[in-house]
């Protein structure tokens, strides 16, 4: 009798305590300020006024794991970052909870690739999964509410609190093990033993023959008429270097030369310093693994390849050894003549070597490291030839044709891997870049990969002498999503959603670069209406990106308010985007030859609303930030870049224009009908942080002008080309005639074929020149898809700008150059 009373009283007390504790916990979850990729943008949006996460008591974003009890894993978990995710989770105090946000974090999502962990639940326990790619801010709210319910309904924390036996609190789910407690099969459990559908036609090694693309006919790739300037460059090179330089007879995009290895550097030097016009910028440097070229081994004529006798001869010549093992591709740009030039040089051998050109262009440093990392090609004379995107322990070179593309084809990434595969020690990274040993007064500070001010997974390693940055090293690759490898696997249309995610704040601007490249290659004509819609969307995204820039730059310098203001207009922009495309961050709306659907009813009204209010709001914001004495004092004169440096390092976009050069692809090499719009190209001369800020603010003003013009003069007509060979037909038309139906069926299922050839196209993205280099081998997917991200070149200048400043200045500089990691690491 007595014992049962004693048993009951603490029981009742404990139940009451559970109730109180759970109630308090439910409404005071503190999430960590931790983001991996696109999803975090939506997570951060959930904190702003429109979604107002504060209503649920979880608005206190903590920058340190010590003060947080909720980890929202928002975005793609990369194998390189996974040890960091695990550490952050372990450094959080008890009790703690985990929400996995977005498809990537849940299961790898659309990134079934070598660099991505196929689900964060393989390394840390997960309480709640939020589906979506990316989930909307409302989905974050729902995830939070589900977690709150879980806390209240299942947890019994008081026994743990009072050090008694039993009780539950925090995450108690187990870490899953691939193949045991979760299925490694992308199709779900139960399919083991069945070959993945499409395996027989997927690219890679060994090659599978008999692609159905071969029975499809296409016209040959586009052929351009070279300008007189380009022709004279060809003549000059011919005269000076003779047979060592071979000009490609027909190209789809720009002047192209093949150069023998021994005279490569000589020609490049000539083009940079002596030729008229001179090619001051190394636009891009990459390589192609030619080993899986079909005519190299499979010497068979196929449709669309040969059209005249002259080429047939050349083809017969090439057929003996049509391609080298690797081709290194250098792409140069001349500011004087607004033209590009491509130089290709063949390399033979399993792990061939070529000369480094870092002594001609300093920006070649990272490009060559990337080629080494991805292909295994060595560059002799390079100061620091080490891996750049993949972690140092990585085996193999992912862009070689024999390398497996899918993450599910590789051994699953486990908890033990996340323990063992630690990021490199700061001192080692610094030692790679600098031969001189660090001085005794210096110590190393890691800023990132998890830091609120690095705007993504960037790791800055500062060798500090007191407050001063003695040397700065960057370690990138924490956000390498294998965008280029995916381009070789997905069909031409399937790749469009992946381009969105390359610069996740740039949305349609990415798609525009990609479709322009493929349209250039296959000579697809885009109706005027589609062009205007594309321009309008691209400018809307530029606006949205610059608004985020404005807010986050302010926040980096300690001003919280701008963020909350600018996200309001950003929501207006995204509402318009959503009305037109159905998506927010990732519209997936552009198609080859046009756009996915015509403009919906009511679009004009929404756009007019934005155009009407925006200029006034912008003036207000400018007063708020641009005239703020603290902001001015912290940015004026800081991190100056000279025009010469900017050209040498391949800097593009607003950062280049802030150095005084009026260089905007929309004006200089117009695409998508930009020559029909009236707008100015804002520039500044100082090249410092404040100049970079000013240029972007002015760009917003110009963007709204373009949007207004596009909306006012929106042409009527088709929204997608009627050349259905290359596009997905209109549904209405598809239902009317059998031919269109066939095109629809083919292009949706196996995908259309793009003729053999190559083309590069770049557009003026929000943060610089965003280019795609599409190489086709006449199949339903690209042979090589090179993405030239503006951030890769822009961020490489960071040590140049920040050395000698302090950590606080480094934050301001990072904020001012507007970086985003997926477009740096791709």
């Amino acid at each position: 009798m007595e014992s049962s009373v004693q048993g009951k009283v603490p029981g009742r007390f404990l139940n009451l305590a559970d109730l109180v504790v759970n109630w308090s916990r439910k409404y005071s979850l503190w999430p960590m300020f931790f983001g991996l990729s696109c999803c975090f943008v939506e997570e951060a949006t959930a904190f702003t006024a429109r979604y107002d996460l504060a209503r649920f008591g979880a608005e206190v974003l903590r920058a340190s794991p010590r003060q947080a009890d909720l980890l929202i894993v928002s975005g793609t978990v990369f194998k390189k970052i996974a040890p960091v995710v695990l550490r952050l989770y372990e450094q959080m105090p008890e009790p703690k909870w985990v929400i996995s946000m977005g498809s990537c974090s849940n299961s790898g999502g659309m990134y079934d690739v070598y660099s991505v962990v196929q689900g964060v639940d393989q390394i840390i326990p997960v309480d709640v999964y939020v589906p979506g790619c990316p989930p909307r801010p409302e989905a974050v709210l729902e995830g939070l509410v589900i977690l709150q319910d879980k806390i209240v309904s299942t947890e019994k924390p008081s026994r743990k609190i009072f050090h008694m036996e039993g009780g539950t609190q925090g995450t108690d789910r187990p870490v899953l093990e691939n193949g045991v407690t979760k299925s490694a099969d992308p199709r779900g459990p139960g399919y083991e033993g069945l070959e993945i559908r499409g395996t027989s036609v997927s690219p890679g090694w060994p090659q599978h023959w008999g692609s159905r693309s071969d029975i499809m006919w296409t016209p040959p790739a586009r052929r351009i008429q070279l300008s007189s300037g380009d022709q004279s460059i060809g003549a000059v090179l011919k005269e000076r270097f003779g047979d060592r330089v071979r000009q490609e007879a027909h190209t789809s995009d720009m002047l192209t030369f093949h150069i023998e290895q021994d005279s490569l550097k000589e020609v490049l030097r000539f083009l940079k310093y002596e030729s008229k016009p001179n090619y001051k910028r190394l636009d891009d440097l990459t390589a192609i693994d030619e080993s899986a070229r079909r005519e190299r081994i499979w010497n068979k004529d196929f449709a669309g390849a040969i059209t005249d006798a002259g080429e047939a001869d050349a083809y017969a010549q090439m057929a003996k050894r049509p391609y080298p093992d690797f081709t290194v591709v250098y792409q140069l740009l001349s500011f004087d003549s607004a033209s590009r030039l491509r130089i290709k040089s063949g390399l033979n051998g399993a792990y061939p070597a070529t000369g480094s050109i870092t002594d001609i262009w300093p920006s070649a440093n990272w490009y060559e490291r990337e080629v080494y990392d991805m292909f295994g090609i060595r560059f002799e004379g390079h100061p620091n030839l080490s891996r750049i995107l993949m972690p140092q322990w990585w085996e193999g070179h992912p862009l070689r044709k024999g390398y497996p593309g899918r993450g599910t084809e590789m051994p699953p990434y486990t908890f033990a891997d996340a323990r063992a595969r630690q990021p490199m020690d700061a001192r080692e990274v610094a030692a790679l870049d600098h031969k001189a040993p660090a001085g005794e007064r210096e110590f190393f500070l890691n800023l990132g990969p998890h830091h609120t001010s690095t705007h993504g997974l960037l790791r800055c390693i500062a060798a500090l002498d007191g407050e001063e940055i003695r040397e700065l090293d960057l370690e990138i690759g924490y956000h390498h999503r294998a965008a280029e490898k995916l381009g070789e696997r997905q069909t031409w249309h399937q790749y469009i959603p992946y381009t969105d995610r390359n610069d996740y704040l740039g949305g349609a601007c990415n798609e525009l670069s990609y479709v322009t490249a493929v349209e250039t290659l296959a000579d697809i004509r885009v109706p005027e209406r589609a062009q205007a819609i594309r321009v309008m969307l691209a400018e809307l995204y530029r606006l949205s990106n610059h608004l985020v820039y404005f807010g986050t730059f302010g926040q980096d310098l300690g001003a919280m308010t701008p963020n909350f203001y600018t996200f309001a207009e950003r929501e207006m922009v995204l509402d318009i985007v959503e009305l037109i495309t159905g998506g927010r961050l990732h519209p997936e709306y552009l198609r080859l030859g046009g756009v996915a659907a015509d403009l919906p009813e009511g679009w004009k009204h929404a756009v007019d609303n934005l155009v009407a209010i925006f200029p006034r709001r912008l003036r207000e914001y400018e007063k708020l930030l641009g005239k703020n004495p603290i902001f001015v004092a912290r940015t004026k004169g800081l991190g100056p870049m000279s025009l010469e440096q900017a050209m040498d390092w391949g800097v593009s976009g607003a950062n280049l224009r802030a150095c005084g050069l009026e260089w905007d692809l929309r004006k200089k090499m117009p695409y998508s009908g930009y020559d029909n719009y009236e707008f100015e190209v804002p520039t500044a001369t100082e090249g410092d942080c404040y100049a970079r800020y000013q240029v972007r603010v002015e760009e917003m003003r110009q963007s709204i002008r373009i949007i207004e013009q596009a909306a006012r003069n929106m042409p009527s007509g088709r929204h997608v080309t009627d050349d259905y060979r290359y596009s997905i037909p209109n549904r209405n038309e598809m239902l009317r005639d059998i031919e269109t139906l066939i095109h629809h069926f083919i292009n949706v299922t196996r995908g259309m074929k793009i003729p053999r050839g190559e083309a590069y196209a770049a557009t003026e993205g929000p943060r610089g020149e965003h280019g795609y280099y599409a190489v086709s081998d006449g199949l339903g997917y690209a042979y090589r898809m090179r993405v030239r991200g503006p951030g890769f070149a822009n961020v490489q200048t960071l040590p140049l700008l920040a050395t000698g400043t302090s950590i606080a200045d480094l934050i301001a500089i990072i904020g001012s150059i507007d970086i985003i990691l997926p477009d740096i690491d791709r």
Partner: protein
Amino acid sequence: MQPISDGIMSPWEPGVFSLAVYSILVLAFITSQLFLAVWLGEKKWSVEKSRPYECGIIPTGSAYFRYPVPFYMVAIFFLIFDVEGAFIFAWALVYREVGWAGYLQMSFFIVLLLVGLFYIWKHGGLDWRVAYKERYPAGS
């Protein structure tokens, strides 16, 4: 100044008993707070948790070393001028009493201070990054 008359301020009558009670209450409150904070809740120790947090990376080297403080000169100048400022505050209290003579003396004092400040300024004493720039000339 006027002498303080009786009745303006409360009498000084220390009550030892109430002080003791108050002290005990304060101590008891603090102890209970500290005890609850230490005792309540679940604690799990792990190597990772006890590691310093540095953006998710294992830190390099120790945090205990001779940390260079290049702005110590600025700090010292601030202290010196701050103390000198105290004289000026005192002067403000007796501004009327000391009259023009005091005004001239203080002006002289302030001018001297300003001369000192300009001297330091001219010699770069306020630019605490000079030491760094000398040690690492640009382009090194």
